[in-house]
């Protein structure tokens, strides 16, 4: 996460970074994302992103600062598509 904006986050400010999988080039966040990988399917309509994990912010970010983070995720066995986006 990086902060190229002109302002700083405050030291007591917290947020959550989320990672999503989607079948769409542009994820549709107008509907609630799916959180259960077993219930997530390519044929869902409307197509909804799958939330595969969240991480709390590592630190406050002053203007120009950044931090790195990672998450592990096991792909659902029910998905047989070659076209997922992150």
């Amino acid at each position, binding site marked *: *996460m*990086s*902060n*190229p*904006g*002109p*302002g*700083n*986050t405050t030291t007591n400010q917290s*947020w959550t*970074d989320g*990672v999503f999988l989607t079948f769409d080039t542009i994820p549709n966040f107008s509907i609630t994302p799916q959180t259960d990988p077993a219930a997530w399917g390519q044929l869902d309509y409307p197509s909804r992103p799958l939330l595969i994990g969240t991480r709390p912010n590592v630190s406050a*970010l002053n*203007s120009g600062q*950044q*931090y*790195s*983070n*990672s*998450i*592990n*995720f*096991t*792909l*659902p*066995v*029910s*998905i*047989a598509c*070659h076209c997922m986006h*992150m």
Partner: protein
Amino acid sequence: MCPGTATYTINNIPGATYFWRIAGGSTLASTTNSANVTWTTPGTYSLLVSASGSCGAASAIDTLVVTVINSIQPDSVQSMLRPNGAINQQLPLTLSWMPASQTFYTFDLYVWRADLAQPGTPYAANLTTVNYTLPVNSGLSTNQPYKWMVVSHNGSCTQINTGPIQQFTLIPLPDLVVQNVQAPTTAFSGQTITINGQ
């Protein structure tokens, strides 16, 4: 009423001549059913009027009690907070000020972008408190200097006093973005992948 000139009118009787006077004071020049009176000194007065025609005695006297209030120009506000030049201010933002005396005033608050002309319309008018909170949805932009000013009103009279112009700047906001996301370009069902981001 406030000191100044007021026009008084009574029902018109065709052909009648009217006599206007102030009790204990002067007779007014008007002989019509309308008269102008200039009130200069605070106090309570009785405005009297009667009418007479060519064929009879004068009518009964009609009386109007007029109270002229003491109108003093209000003092300019002082002790304005936020301090002039304050930066990194956040919404909701409470602006406050103090009248120089304990006399009851009402206030108009002006807030405008520092790079634009002062608006003719106050941001908030006829305030009876000595503070005002700019809400989060006030429409003010972050990282933007604003000027603000308070105008004091003296009761119902139109005398005003304009306070000093001060400036504050709203805090610039961060802009959090995700970049350099690293993930396998291919993976199979059931495989555990690691996603890195920055």
